[in-house]
């Protein structure tokens, strides 16, 4: 396996090294090192409780780390977090738009928090709403907006200060497929404009689609960092045959190892991971067992994720 080449640190909008944070004796972030490359989309993946949100809170200076150093937009954090945040846009995990205001007022009031004058903010509002697909919704109350519209307005709000780095915590959680695609399309446009994006997500397709590089986080550590394709090549067999059916677990225990290098069982599904050799013998074998249904596909990021973080539930 060839090691993934680490890109240069110069001019990075966010550099994190040796970051540690404990709550009540439990180390939630246990030594995290990474940095962003200007203009890239970097995805932070991990099961619930992996420490993603705590890492982001530390990066924004909203909680003081126990150890380590953070440089955000060239400023040391938490010491100069306030100055650093003038050049950052944040889309939080849960919508916290101001329900007392209209869509346009939300942007106006938020711009004021950046020290911008009304004369600076007001001319930008129409363009920001247009970008978010909310043209003409200036006077709409927050309550009247759908979940997808709220998310897009939150994105527009995060852009009011024209940030160089955009931090998004699970930007598409809870959205329908149409709304997710719209968010992705907008994020790609921002990348094309040269913005840097750091996002956390549970959705592997989202990470594969958007991110140039991905870090998989578990139990407070980054256990793999690299471009999605490289992570798949490095960590997992290239082909997967999923076998479903009542007898799949029994079959997996008795016979699967004759055909596949590695087999994992989850519920009534057996996942057969096939190293370079041909999957044809396994498929021919399965074709004679009509009680078992099969799906033959290339390995993806979700396979890597589940291999590295395990299949047990993280509640």
């Amino acid at each position: 396996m060839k090691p993934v080449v680490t890109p240069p640190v110069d001019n990075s909008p966010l550099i994190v090294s040796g970051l540690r944070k404990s709550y009540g004796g439990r180390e939630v972030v246990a030594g995290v090192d990474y940095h962003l490359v200007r203009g890239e989309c970097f995805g932070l993946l991990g099961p619930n409780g992996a420490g993603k949100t705590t890492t982001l809170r530390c990066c924004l200076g909203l909680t003081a780390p126990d150890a380590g150093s953070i440089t955000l937009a060239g400023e040391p954090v938490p010491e100069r977090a306030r100055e650093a945040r003038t050049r950052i846009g944040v889309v939080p995990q849960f919508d916290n738009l101001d329900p007392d205001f209209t869509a346009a007022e939300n942007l106006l009031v938020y711009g004021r928090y950046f020290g911008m004058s009304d004369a600076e903010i007001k001319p930008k509002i129409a363009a920001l709403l247009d970008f978010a697909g909310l043209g003409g919704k200036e006077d709409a109350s927050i309550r009247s907006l759908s979940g997808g519209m709220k998310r897009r307005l939150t994105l527009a709000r995060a852009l009011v200060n024209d940030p160089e780095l955009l931090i998004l915590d699970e930007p598409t959680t809870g959205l329908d497929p149409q709304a997710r695609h719209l968010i992705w399309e907008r994020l790609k446009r921002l990348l094309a404009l040269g913005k840097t994006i750091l996002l956390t997500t549970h959705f592997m397709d989202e990470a594969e689609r958007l991110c140039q590089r991905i870090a998989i986080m578990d139990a407070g550590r980054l256990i793999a960092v690299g471009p999605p394709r490289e992570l798949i090549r490095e960590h997992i067999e290239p082909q997967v045959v999923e076998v479903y059916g009542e007898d799949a677990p029994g079959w997996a225990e008795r016979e699967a190892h004759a055909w596949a290098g590695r087999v994992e069982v989850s519920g009534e599904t057996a996942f057969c991971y096939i190293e370079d050799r041909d999957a044809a013998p396994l498929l021919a074998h399965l074709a004679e067992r009509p009680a078992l249904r099969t799906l033959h596909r290339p390995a993806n990021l979700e396979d890597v994720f589940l291999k590295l973080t395990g299949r047990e539930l993280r509640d």
Partner: protein
Amino acid sequence: MQLALPHLVQLPQLSFRAFAVWRRNFLVWKKLAIPSLLGNLADPMIYLFGLGYGLGGLLPQVAGVSYIAFLASGTVCASTMNAASFEALYSAFSRMHVQKTWESIMNAPVSLDDVVTGELLWAAAKATLSGTAILVVISALGFVASPMALWALPVIFLTGLCFAALGLIVTALAPSYDFFMYYFTLFITPMVLLCGVFFPPDQLPPLVQIVGAWLPLTHAVALVRPLLFGELPQNILLHLAALLGVALVAFWIALSLTRRRLLK
């Protein structure tokens, strides 16, 4: 960062961004300014006229003036206290805990200290409006004897600061809205009775009087009442220092507790 109580020893980090937080609340208030002001006036006015005329008719002069005039000056202070407390408890808690407005503000270059300071100044400003509105009404009704009453305005603002800061302590500790009931029943309501709003405190047993003398509303009433009757209050510096002291110490505690709650 390794200190035992970092949140307590840290000095407040204030900036003019606190004013952006203040403006946010002002913009919301502006939308409903008239109903809000009328709402703030209605309750104290009902008490003032109900008790002032109903009870006042049975009473001789109290402290040298008609009972309704006596009560009117106390009502200014009690309303200021109530307005500051409601804003710093229910409204601030909604913004902090329910709507997560503070969280969104802190993602911008605004510190938590700025947010809490903005809330403090806003609650004090709203209380000042409330107290001033009552002052205007009772002046129009002839219960104010002298233009010296204008000196009551800074005292009203200081009273607002004092109770806003105390309220923010409770908000920092509150798990839910229900918690505020304790603060009102155990602190605010007794204060109205012990601090000379409805009757002179010397009517109370001596021990209770001593307790009352330590409560901040006592100091507000001791300053506002004489000013409305055109007299110079006694021990002005003592009362001002008491209100200012409570405001500063309470703000410091509120800030520390809020940091502990939100910046962990």
